[in-house]
């Protein structure tokens, strides 16, 4: 354990050294470096943004969500999601709809939540007439015979 930590520290130091060296190059190289740095940072931000929107799933059975807290003053909020896919990325079969769960306590369970059933291919639902408060929401896929997937990770909505 100790040895690994030391190796990590060395790698970090090496990266710092490389960066410092680059900054000491000629003005033209410096501009190039800044442009490259800007591109890298831009790409990183883009990746982060996409990651936040798409979650960290591998596209197959992963539970992903933004976990974002959304504040709304309209006594309603809209949930949106993408359909499930198999582990190989192909579309699932026998999907008959979704259940949207919402509760005022976390974590959501089947015991403490309200459910809105969502039909067929519809991938959004509005929760309306919500009293002021904090709501935890999650969604399951419903398959033939009524079998449900696991819940997605919870997302929080605050009604003010």
């Amino acid at each position, binding site marked *: 354990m100790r040895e690994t930590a030391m190796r990590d520290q060395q790698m970090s130091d090496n990266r710092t050294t490389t960066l410092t060296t680059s900054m000491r190059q000629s003005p033209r190289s410096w501009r190039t470096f800044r442009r490259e740095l800007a591109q890298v940072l831009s790409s990183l931000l883009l990746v982060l943004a996409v990651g936040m929107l798409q979650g960290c799933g591998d596209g197959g059975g992963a539970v992903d969500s933004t976990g974002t807290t959304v504040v709304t003053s309209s006594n309603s909020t*809209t949930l949106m999601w993408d359909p499930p896919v198999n582990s190989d990325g192909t579309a699932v079969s026998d999907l008959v709809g979704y259940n949207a769960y919402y509760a005022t306590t976390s974590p959501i369970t*089947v015991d403490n939540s309200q459910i809105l059933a969502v039909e067929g291919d519809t991938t959004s639902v509005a929760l309306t007439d919500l009293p002021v408060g904090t709501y935890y929401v999650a969604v399951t896929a419903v398959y*033939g015979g009524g079998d449900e997937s696991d819940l997605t990770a919870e997302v929080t909505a605050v009604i003010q």
Partner: protein
Amino acid sequence: MRIAKVFHTVCVGLIVAIFACAEPGFAANYPLELISPRAAGSSPTTGQPAISGNNRIFLAYPGIEYNIRAAVIGGAYPFTFSLSNAPSGMTINATTGEIVWTSPPNGAAVTPTITVTDTEGTTVTASWTITVDPNRFIFLDAVNGREFDVANPGTGTLANPFRRIRDLYQGDVYDSKRLNAHVNKIAYFRQGTYYIDGYLEDAGGLSLGRMAVLDSFKPVAWLAYPGETPTIDGQCFSASPQIGARPCNGSAHITFYGTGDNTYIDGFRVTNMAYHGFRVAGLGNYQTFRRNHFSRLGPTEPSVNESWITTSSSGSSAMGSHMTIQDNILEDLDRGACIKLYSTQRILIEDNICRTSYDSTGGNDTEGFAIKGGTMDRVTVRHNTIYNVSQKGIGGNMHTLLSSEILFNRVYNVNNVGNYTSPGNYWGAGVDINEDGYAGTLRIYRNTFVCRVVVGNTDSIDGPFYFYNNVIINDDPGDHLIYENVSDMSRIQFTNNLVGTPSQNIVGTNLNLTEAYASYVGTRGYQIGPATTLPPPRNLRVQ
């Protein structure tokens, strides 16, 4: 940590032990009976009505997939299925009993044999003959078909299909109701929307009326063309004059009567109906509703037995037999029940989803499966999922309900789960065994109920009612059953149930037992084996 684990184990042991008497096991309560398929003219049990040779199971169209599902009651669930002497291209799903024959050759007549085996090793076999005959079928195509009474009319063949239900009906006036039109044929519906535009009668209230389909005059086997999902739309609206020059005051429904024998509705989307989706004669035999998606019923009126599927009471002790309701989604009902039954026996309700049954008026006139009475016997409610029901999940004022089974079902999210307030308040019961009349033996086992369970209006001539090996989660006290007007408690046998409160985290998503209670998988609740993981939705977001 260790102390907590020991404490937890002791608690779990207590929960079960407190209510444990003699282990009843899962032996068959009734003989294993194969309702369908079976030979024409035979019945599962001596003395019971025989299946007619006009039933859908005996006919196939050349080159079009033949698809049926076995229907079994009694025995020890779950079952396994196999086929012998099957023609080339015919297979059976060993778990569900679904039989598929991908491309029946013209002129063939085949006689496969099905074997069903229960968990005690009991087997039942039956052989049935399927004739491949294009002359026993008609076709409707809402997009490319032609009406029967226009120049160059449709003839109802695959190449020249009809366009509307009115064509199948051969008209939309009173005289067409009893006009012999394609009787005993099977109707395939191609993709498209079909309005209820035959003759409508009994309009009133919120209903445009009902279209009566008499089995002695019209086709009563309606099938979706394989791979397509035709819609039956009960709506009447001015932009679409399909209904004709009738008062456009609401929606309609379809009723199959005469005897209603052999009614077979498979693969439709059914929407915008009033009072009912389909109403069939309780005296009818071997009726099937399978793979349909019912959505948007009502708002309707109370006391009309509003429901997606209902049987009409015979008004006597006579009963129809062997109805099967499998693999349907029944949802979005405003004041009604997914299924409401009278006067039928040996009925199988299996693998259906019933959800979102509510009352927009704020009342409590909603139910999931309402098993009423008018004399009923051997009702089997098996492996269904019922949730989002504002009054009762499974129940009903059971007037003369005889021996029946409720097993391996999931019921949850019924209102007022933890809010039992006073005697007489039955609302919000996931299961309500309310014997308003004489009741025979009811066996309620291996279900998972996250809801209130009520037994009411029961005396010494009723039952006994056996509750065993269920999982029951609610905030009610004691054994988590509510007893209302029960004068003889000995008629209620409550054994080997795993009960608790929501805070104990006994079940999770899908109502599967949580890891702490996994040792009860296979002996308590609906779960047959370890939970399987199904892919969840992705990228949940809110705005």
